[in-house]
């Protein structure tokens, strides 16, 4: 394979615009630079696309496969054949012209960086669809084009019409995209592969399959919505609220062309059936006529062009619906022709809007004198749109007329086709004439916002260039577009490629008569209705076809009424009912599991339970029920009872050989209790039962009974499941692996600790990150918070103390030093003892119960005791605890330990260990896991202390004067926060 390998370039074509869009979006480029970057990328894209021509000529196909999800047989395939090459050149070429044009069109107030970024991304998505060799991939890019067209149409989002238009376009096209997805899945299922080449080769299998009808309907739903075919046409005129460069791009060469692109792409396998003819042909025919008819009565330049676009897309669709190879050739040809003249017309309309300040046909007049060059170009393009000879539009329209004359099915519709086609051609002449005459001729315009003039040179250039193409293709088609069209047609039709001739003069035949009829008739009709057309708002009769109204009604019904009704039925703002539902669902799931298991082996114990253990649990059960009963009115009692249940849990861990759990649970129990004790101060006084004690309302009784039933059911199920599992013998589990490898591989004898810091170190790392985040959240929540005013008042106990000991000390800030001196001193002296205990727990952790978690919590208890004994003020004058730094260094140590193993070429957190002899201390394990555990330790200390201090500081942060203090000056705040200040409050 020679370098550069050409099969790489289709991928580059898709990726480059996305990369550029992202870079541009993230950069700080100004107006000038964004324009240049976008233009540069677009030019490079065009050059790449054009240069790939030799690779696709003569039916050759470029293809690159990139593994995506090989396990389910999905690969990303970037594929280019003659037809998609033609499309890619259209997308990139017209994209370049649009970018150039937009540089001059966009106002200095518009954020152009965003505009160009979206435009490039849209180009990438378009190329993604065009160059996909896998139909799933194609649908993904298809939906991306919908998303970016939404962003582009809604670019001026301060404008309600732009927002509505964007939303409508997205809703219609993305819904169609979903249908397309389903259709493509079916198609892939029928063909046995999602690869386009395989699908294209299985025509027989696909059309014979029973699922063909459904797949076809779904795919057509996607294609017809995208190409704005009746009855989904109404989104396109609404999308005209977009900036004109967007309209020029989306509605000439790209977005709306995707629908017909897909129809052409799948034409070889899907076309030819009756169903195809009826759906595609009918939709195309109706759209062709209605679009042209509606365009006549538009007063907005862009509106006229929008309906004309709809009509021309209808023409292409109709051609494809006819299912004859020649019609397919005409469709491909017209795709190209329409893109060139329509893009130039949109840009011309934008120039007129830009230079006069209006697009209203009734206000515009006689512009030829002011902008002769633009006017000439626009007139040529309109003539191409009307199908005037010597222009490209004439050629494809002639082919279309010729095809309608051919008999295909012999039905009534088929026989009427030439007449209907001529009528549509006549309409298109009417609106083209109207566009030209009313804009460029007649008296000088009056009441314009500004004096019209020619636009800047390079703003006009894209229009001129495209018009030149219209002319050249129209005069000498055989040697200009001919070879490229032939390549494209060969790629689609292969052996079926028919003979066709691209010359201007085919003799005096039926199509020519039809063309002439349409031209002359169109001018006559225009003369007859010219005044009427100016006076109406919207097309007569067709106004009654209110697709848009129906769409809006459906949207309101679904997204407003139905959603509101569902929310009323299913939603609630009450937490209790939500939790209730969750619990009931879990309960049902649990019961289902129990019912489905084999209960025959459910045996009762033959051994008598240990009396001590039984007694312990009788106490535990009493504590749990007591806590549940007391939590409403006697919070302290409930807290003590809860801790009692916690202690029973600790004892159970001890009993059943889990010393690590017991230590950690015990320490956590202490910290939790203190935390809640601190929080108790800020809860409102519990008023006596609002319902009184004697007569509860029935609803309350029912609610409580219901909750009791749920609680009992959960409890009983838990008991049953736990018992059921515990009495089963345990099969061989992972435990063996951990037990056998803990010492030889992890270097620790305490298997639980080795699992935490070594085997599953990454999980522990995640866990300490969570802990740190929680601590910071607590800190952030409380940082600016002031307690409720009614809990500012000193509790009765504090007031009594202050009366007895004098008012110098504030017991809330200064702790019990004055009135509990003995306990206070003991607590002070406990500090070094607990620090040693923490160190002991830490170092033995790898070999015996203990470890970073337990040591960290023990250490934080040491700090906690100081706060309790000395009060906030006293401690913080003497001890600077910087919890956030503890958290930070903890995380850093743990992460660095993990990264350290990378240095030695091992995966993240691979541990290393050995034992070293230290003087006095003796043999200590120096595993890298110990360092990791140190990180855990530091983080746990920091997090716990941060939370405790944040809550304890609530009592410090009060207004200076409080109710209940008559003359006592409260300590002011800044002095109170040495520990907190450096990290956050500053």
């Amino acid at each position, binding site marked *: 394979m020679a370098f550069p390998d050409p099969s790489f370039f289709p991928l580059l074509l898709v990726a480059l615009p996305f990369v550029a869009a992202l870079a541009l979006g993230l950069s700080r480029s100004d107006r000038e630079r964004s324009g240049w970057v976008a233009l540069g990328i677009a030019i490079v894209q065009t050059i790449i696309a054009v240069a790939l021509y030799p690779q696709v000529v003569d039916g050759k196909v470029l293809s690159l496969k990139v593994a995506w999800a090989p396990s389910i047989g999905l690969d990303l395939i970037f594929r280019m054949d003659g037809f998609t090459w033609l499309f890619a050149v259209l997308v990139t070429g017209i994209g370049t012209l649009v970018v150039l044009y937009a540089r001059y069109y966009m106002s200095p107030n518009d954020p152009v960086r965003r505009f160009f970024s979206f435009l490039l991304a849209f180009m990438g998505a378009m190329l993604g669809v065009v160059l996909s060799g896998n139909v799933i991939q194609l649908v993904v890019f298809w939906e991306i084009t919908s998303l970016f067209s939404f962003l582009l149409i809604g670019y001026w989002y301060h404008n309600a019409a732009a927002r509505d238009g964007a939303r409508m376009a997205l809703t219609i096209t993305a819904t169609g995209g979903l249908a397309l997805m389903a259709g493509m899945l079916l198609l892939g299922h029928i063909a046995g592969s999602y690869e386009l080449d395989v699908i294209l080769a299985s025509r027989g299998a696909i059309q014979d399959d029973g699922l063909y009808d459904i797949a076809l309907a779904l795919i057509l739903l996607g294609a017809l919505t995208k190409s704005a075919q009746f009855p989904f046409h109404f989104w396109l005129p609404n999308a005209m609220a977009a900036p004109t460069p967007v309209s020029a791009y989306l509605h000439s060469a790209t977005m709306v062309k995707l629908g017909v692109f897909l129809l052409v792409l799948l034409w070889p396998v899907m076309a030819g059936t009756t169903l195809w003819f009826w759906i595609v042909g009918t939709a195309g025919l109706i759209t062709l006529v209605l679009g042209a008819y509606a365009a006549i009565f538009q007063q907005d330049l862009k509106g006229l062009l929008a309906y004309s676009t709809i009509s021309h897309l209808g023409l292409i669709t109709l051609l494809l619906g006819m299912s004859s190879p020649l019609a397919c050739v005409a469709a491909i040809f017209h795709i190209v022709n329409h893109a060139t003249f329509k893009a130039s017309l949109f840009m011309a309309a934008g120039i007129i809007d830009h230079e006069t300040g209006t697009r209203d046909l009734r206000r515009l007049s006689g512009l030829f004198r002011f902008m002769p060059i633009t006017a000439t170009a626009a007139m040529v393009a309109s003539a191409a749109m009307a199908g005037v000879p010597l222009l490209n539009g004439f050629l494809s329209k002639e082919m279309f007329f010729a095809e309608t004359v051919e008999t295909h099915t012999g039905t009534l519709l088929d026989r009427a086709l030439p007449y209907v086609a001529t009528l549509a051609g006549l309409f298109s002449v009417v609106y083209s004439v109207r566009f030209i005459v009313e804009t460029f001729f007649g008296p000088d315009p009056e009441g314009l916002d500004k004096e019209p003039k020619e636009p800047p040179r390079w703003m006009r250039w894209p229009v001129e260039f495209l018009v030149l193409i219209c002319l050249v293709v129209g005069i000498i088609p055989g040697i200009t577009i001919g070879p490229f069209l032939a390549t494209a047609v060969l790629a689609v039709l292969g052996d079926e490629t028919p003979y066709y001739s691209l010359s201007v003069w085919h003799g005096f035949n039926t199509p020519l008569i039809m063309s002439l009829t349409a031209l002359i008739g169109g001018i006559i009709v225009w003369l007859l209705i010219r005044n009427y057309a100016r006076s109406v708002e919207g097309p007569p009769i067709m106004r009654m076809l209110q697709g848009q109204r129906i769409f809006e009604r459906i949207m309101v019904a679904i997204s407003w009424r139905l959603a509101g009704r569902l929310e009323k039925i299913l939603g609630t703002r009450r937490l209790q009912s939500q939790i209730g539902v969750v619990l009931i669902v879990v309960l049902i799931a649990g019961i289902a599991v129990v019912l489905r298991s084999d209960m025959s082996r459910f045996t009762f114990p033959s051994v008598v339970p240990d009396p001590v253990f039984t007694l312990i649990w009788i106490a535990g059960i009493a504590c*749990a029920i007591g806590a549940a009963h007391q939590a409403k009115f006697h919070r302290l009692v409930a807290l003590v009872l809860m801790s009692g249940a916690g202690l029973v849990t600790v004892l159970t861990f001890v009993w059943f050989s889990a010393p690590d759990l017991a230590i950690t649970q015990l320490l956590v129990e202490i910290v939790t209790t203190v935390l809640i004790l601190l929080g108790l101060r800020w809860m409102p006084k519990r008023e006596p039962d609002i319902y009184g004690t004697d007569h509860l309302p029935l609803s309350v009784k029912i609610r409580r009974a219901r909750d009791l039933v749920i609680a009992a059911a959960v409890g009983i199920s838990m008991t049953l499941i736990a018992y059921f599992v515990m009495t089963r013998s345990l099969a061989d589990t992972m435990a063996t692996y951990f037990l056998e490898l803990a010492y030889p591989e992890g270097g620790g004898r305490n298997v639980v600790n080795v699992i935490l810091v070594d085997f599953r170190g990454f999980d522990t790392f995640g866990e300490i990150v969570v802990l740190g985040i929680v601590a910071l959240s607590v800190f952030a929540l409380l940082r600016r918070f002031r307690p409720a005013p009614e809990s500012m008042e000193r509790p009765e106990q504090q007031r009594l103390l202050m009366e007895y000991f004098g008012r110098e000390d504030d017991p809330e800030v200064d702790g019990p030093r004055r009135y509990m001196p003995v306990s206070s001193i003991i607590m002070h002296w406990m500090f070094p003892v607990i620090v040693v205990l923490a160190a002991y727990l830490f170092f033995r952790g790898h070999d015996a119960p203990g470890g970073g978690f337990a040591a960290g919590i023990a250490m934080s208890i040491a700090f906690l005791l100081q706060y309790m004994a000395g009060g906030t003020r006293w401690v913080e004058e003497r001890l600077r605890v910087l919890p956030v730094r503890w958290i930070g260094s903890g995380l850093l140590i743990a992460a660095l330990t993990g990264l350290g193993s990378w240095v030695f070429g091992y995966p993240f957190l691979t541990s290393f260990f050995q034992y070293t002899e230290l003087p006095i201390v003796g043999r200590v394990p120096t595993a890298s896991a110990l360092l990791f555990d140190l990180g855990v330790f530091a983080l746990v200390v920091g997090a716990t202390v941060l939370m405790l201090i944040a809550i304890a500081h609530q009592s410090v942060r009060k207004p200076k004067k409080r109710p209940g203090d008559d003359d006592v000056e409260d300590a002011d705040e800044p002095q109170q926060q040495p520990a907190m200040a450096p990290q956050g409050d500053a």
Partner: protein
Amino acid sequence: MELILAIGIGVLAGSGVWLILRPRSFQVIIGLSLVSYAVNLFIFSMGRLGTGLPPVIDPNNPMDVSAYTDPLPQALVLTAIVIGFAMTALFLVVLIVSRGMTGTDHVDGREPGQ
């Protein structure tokens, strides 16, 4: 033994669930703690119960897997204890702040009927 523990787990869970369904936030916080005891014990018991078999290896004797309890549920529960503590602390603070801002300790942030 298993039966006693199973009943204990059930009572802890039932009491906790009852409290979680109550309207006052303090009741919920106590309830959550009780439920975490129950769940921790439940997960722990999945490794089966055994006395005198702590998973601390004696390197002097040959490896005998049956001489130790399952360390994996213990490791799981150890992390669960710490995360449970963090959850309780966070919930407590949310409770305090919500009470300060709404003036009520009802879980919905407003008294019923308001």
